[in-house]
């Protein structure tokens, strides 16, 4: 493999920095109008009247849509939605269908006008009156009315593998603490946007910022009652998604507006709307109890998570990592979920593991201190060699090597166990570490590969490049499989007319799509070779496949490299403008993110390759190390160094992979140090509604991040051996920081974020 693994720069990089890469909101249409949603100013109640007169009279206004005049959409119906291919939906609230309000900021009307400015200013003129009910806002006080979910991603949600309570009570050493994390909002660089274009009365094109054109298509088709084949979703470039893009219903609102005004309509979601209308990570209260023997071995783990949801089955699954980490013989993992009248929670980068590793990995640190063992040693001695829940071996698990490498690169041995031992000037210095983990998924994917008349190649699949480098890495795989330089591979993504690929969620695009790229390229190569070896005019005529190698856009005879035949020549001799192959690979660990659309052809090798899938547990692992400097007088924390070692299978591109980990760590530093959505206790409005109030890390908050990969291919996930990499980087980060803060100051802070007030 010449290209795979190399730090190839993004093939779309130039387009992106020159503005040539078009994002959803940039697909301006002729005669386009603009929609601006009006949001509720109460959190719970009923709309009693909507006075649209001033808005309608405002200049440029084309329509004001309210629940009174909005078109009827198909109603929420989980079975029907599932059949329609909606593998998940942001919230169960088709827009403007009735007068009920469930959270502050809910879309309650929509103004359509000639210009964006006209739509927005008219939206401010709408007068909505409500019968207000008392909203449920406070997590703690609502939990007694909460429910205990039965299922989590299709599995049992509430787990107890033994007599946890008794074992904990009898344990020689025990800790029990409560950890809390804040609600966080989604703020990818590119806000959500949709442009809806009705091509005919029953035919719709949507330019949308989405992580999965097929899920988005299914959503549009279902709610608007269209045939899926009559809906096309186009989304070639996405400025970050992190779980927030593709499943929210503003795109349906855009289509409704376009239908009313009979023109293309753009609906661009504002930053302020992002605080309520595109999902969020809900706050958690997590209680962890660890019991261990005098030998330092864990006897039991209990992890109780409490959180909230609103209009969705989704809840933050913060117990997930506790199913996978550490060899305790028994464990209890439970959830309780309250319903609150705030924006609906959804997936956000490593949903579950992000707050969950904060709690578990802080608790591990506390237990290590309790037992006076080095926290890293404590983890090593409790390492789970097999999946503790299923007892299946892991498909690949080099966590111990992550610990070792990390300790060495970071200089863990310089750490003093006793807090408050290291200073520089007025700063207290501390070291902390934590384990990272995230499941590895691989869904079904279909890829079409074409060789063109000049021998160049095009790879097509409906996958998304949400900024991660999918275009580039696919080109690398195809380049290797066909013996071409990356420059001669064109990649087409983000169009629902392309062959089926999974939603870019669960860190599985690379793991899912590349085996299909490889299989399709191999099929194409064999067809091309067949044309050559059976052609008397070819220098390869009569040769067997084993005798032939390929490279540089041609085949050649291994024993005599002067005997060649190029793809272009083969195409020309056979009078072909284009030749193609298409394969579908089967899922390994169906994370439910694949779209059930007919495959073009099942790759012959796929089923065999995955025959042992059920016998393994698929997870990635890593180790995170942080050095913090704390100005104790002022309570300010600076993360001075960060080392992240990741075991994610084969590294497909050293550069884009590193960027994913760096991005994950920065995201984690945000959660650790500053990100928090605050609600007013009377009106349930998010008070942190702009990026001035909702802080994310800036350059000065981010140190040099030292990333290392174990880079051992996982033989069970695919023949390529790459697991996902998008989410694991955030996991464990906040615990590593909080543990370092304890090491520096002796203060154990169990509530995120670690803002200055908590250290004073």
């Amino acid at each position, binding site marked *: 493999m010449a290209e795979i693994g190399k730090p190839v720069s993004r093939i779309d990089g130039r387009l992106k920095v020159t503005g040539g890469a078009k994002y959803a909101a940039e697909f301006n249409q002729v005669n386009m109008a603009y929609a601006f949603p009006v949001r509720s100013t109460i959190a719970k109640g009923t709309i009693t009247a909507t006075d649209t007169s001033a808005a309608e009279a405002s200049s440029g206004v084309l329509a004001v849509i309210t629940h009174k005049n909005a078109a009827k959409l198909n109603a929420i119906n989980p079975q029907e939605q599932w059949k329609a291919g909606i593998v998940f939906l942001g919230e169960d609230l088709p827009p403007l269908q009735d007068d009920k309000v469930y959270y502050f900021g809910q879309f309650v009307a929509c103004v359509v006008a000639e210009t964006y400015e006209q739509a*927005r*200013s008219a939206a401010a003129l709408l007068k909505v009156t409500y019968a207000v009910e008392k909203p449920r806002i406070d997590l703690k006080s609502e939990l007694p009315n909460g429910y205990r979910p039965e299922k989590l991603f299709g599995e049992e949600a509430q787990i107890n593998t033994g007599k946890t309570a008794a074992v904990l009570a009898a344990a020689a050493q025990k800790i029990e603490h409560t950890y809390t994390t804040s609600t966080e909002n989604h703020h990818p660089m590119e806000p959500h946007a949709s442009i809806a274009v009705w091509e005919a009365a029953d035919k719709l094109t949507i330019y949308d910022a989405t992580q999965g054109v097929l899920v988005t298509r299914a959503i549009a088709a279902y709610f608007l009652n269209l045939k899926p084949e009559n809906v096309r979703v186009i989304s070639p470039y996405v400025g970050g998604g992190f779980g927030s893009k593709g499943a929210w219903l503003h795109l349906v609102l855009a289509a409704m507006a376009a239908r009313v005004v009979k023109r293309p309509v753009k609906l661009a979601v504002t930053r302020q709307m992002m605080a309520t209308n595109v999902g969020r990570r809900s706050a958690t209260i997590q209680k962890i109890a660890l019991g261990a023997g005098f030998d330092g071995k864990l006897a039991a783990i209990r992890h109780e998570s409490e959180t909230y949801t609103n209009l969705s089955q989704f809840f933050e699954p913060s117990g997930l990592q506790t199913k996978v980490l550490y060899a305790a013989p028994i464990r209890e993992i439970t959830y309780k979920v309250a319903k609150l009248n705030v924006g609906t929670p959804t997936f956000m980068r490593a949903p579950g593991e992000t707050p969950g590793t904060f709690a578990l990995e802080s608790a591990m640190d506390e237990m290590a201190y309790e037992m006076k063992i080095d926290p890293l040693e404590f983890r090593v001695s409790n390492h789970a060699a097999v999946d503790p829940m299923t007892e299946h071996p892991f498909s690949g698990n080099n966590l111990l090597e992550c610990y070792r490498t990390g300790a060495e690169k970071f200089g863990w041995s310089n750490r003093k166990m006793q807090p408050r031992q290291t200073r520089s000037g007025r700063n207290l210095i501390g070291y902390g570490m934590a384990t990272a983990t995230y499941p590895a998924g691989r869904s079904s994917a279909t890829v079409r590969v074409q060789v063109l008349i000049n021998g160049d190649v095009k790879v097509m699949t409906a996958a998304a490049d949400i900024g991660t480098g999918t275009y580039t890495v696919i080109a690398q795989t195809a380049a290797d499989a066909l013996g071409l330089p990356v420059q001669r591979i064109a990649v087409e993504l983000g169009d629902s007319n392309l062959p089926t690929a999974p939603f870019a969620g669960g860190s599985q695009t690379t793991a899912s799509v590349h085996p299909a790229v490889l299989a399709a390229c191999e099929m194409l190569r064999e067809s091309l070779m067949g044309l050559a070896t059976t052609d008397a005019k070819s220098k390869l005529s009569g040769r067997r496949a084993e005798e032939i190698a390929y490279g540089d856009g041609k085949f050649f005879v291994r024993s005599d490299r002067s005997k060649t035949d190029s793809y272009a020549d083969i195409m020309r001799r056979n009078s072909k403008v284009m030749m193609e192959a298409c394969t579908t690979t089967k899922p390994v660990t169906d994370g439910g993110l694949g779209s059930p659309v007919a495959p073009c052809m099942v790759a012959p090798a796929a089923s065999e390759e995955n025959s042992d899938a059920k016998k393994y547990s698929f997870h990635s692992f890593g180790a995170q190390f942080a050095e913090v400097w704390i100005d104790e007088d002022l309570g300010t924390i600076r993360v001075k160094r960060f080392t992240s070692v990741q075991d994610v299978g084969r590294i497909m591109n050293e550069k884009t992979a590193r960027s994913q980990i760096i991005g994950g760590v920065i995201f984690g530093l945000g959660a650790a140090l500053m990100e928090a959505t*605050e609600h007013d206790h*009377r009106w349930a409005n998010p008070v942190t509604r702009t990026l001035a109030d909702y802080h994310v890390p800036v350059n*000065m908050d981010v140190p040099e991040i030292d990333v290392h990969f174990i880079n051992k291919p996982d033989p069970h996930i695919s023949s390529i051996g790459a697991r996902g990499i998008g989410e694991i980087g955030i996991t464990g980060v906040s615990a590593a920081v909080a543990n370092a803060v304890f090491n520096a100051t002796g203060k154990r802070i169990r509530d995120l974020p670690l803002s200055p007030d908590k250290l004073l």
Partner: protein
Amino acid sequence: MRPFKYSRAQNTGNAVQTVAANTNSKFLAGGTNILDLMKEDVERPDELVDVTRLNFSQVRTVEGGANKGGVSIGGLGRNTDTANHPLVRQNFPLLTQAILAGASQQIRNMATNGGNLNQRTRCSYFYDTAMPCNKREPGSGCGALEGINRMHALFGWSNDCVAVHPSDMCVALVALDAVVKVQGTDGKERSIPFADYHRLPGNTPQKDNILNQGELITAIEIPKNNFASKSYYLKVRDRASYAFALVSVAAALEIEGNAIKNVRVAMGGVSHKPWRAVEAEKFLTGKAATEANFKAAADAEMRNAKPLEHNKFKVELGRRAIVRALTQAMKGGTNA
């Protein structure tokens, strides 16, 4: 943003008259605050008079008058240019530090000095038109008083408004006894001592300062002083950069023999106006520059703080910040 009329002022007199004549009009300078507020529908002027082409951007030595020998900075000077001007850097490094602690490089490049004085509070209830706010809509109530008020005032607030003035630059200016030069609607210039320029909210929080409709800030004069070698601006915030202050402190000292001859302490993030820490100054004048005295001075000031539900930590933080800023000022104003 509502439709509005835009015009470009040709001269000062015409700018002042236009805005004075229409109570619903405003000056437009760098636009970094007023345009944001218009997009959020918080400010709703029907007319903007762009003053950026007027000639009030120079930094120069004051030739005459009460502040002779001091430095005048133009009302339309950009924050970046002002902070980096040699006259400012040499004579008032405190002002340079304070300006550079605010916003981001890009915003400071656009932002003007006059606009910085007149920027409005960052109270998020003020910004959200769905919320009650006496400053935005007199009589509607104060959302923050019993809401999320972590970023709000410790000093001088009223039940009608607990907001803080967000500027860093103004904290240095009040410490330096600056004077605001204003072109009045009567065509005459008037001078306003900086400490009197911004207001406490009382029962009219809609008024941030004492400027009359149409009055234009042409310059800010800073009298000569002997603080240059011992001054420091400390800003404590929730992230390392690009955030408004939880608490900030401008400190400047002039030492004679073993005693503090002259001292200035001002605070940001604690009041509706840049807060001159008069009690701390009173305590320190004539005393030795020791840590014990700094602490006692900080206590003297913070004793009068009246925290709200979520900002209690700012009392202790403010105390420590005063001590730290004075300590750093004594060390020559570096971070060491």
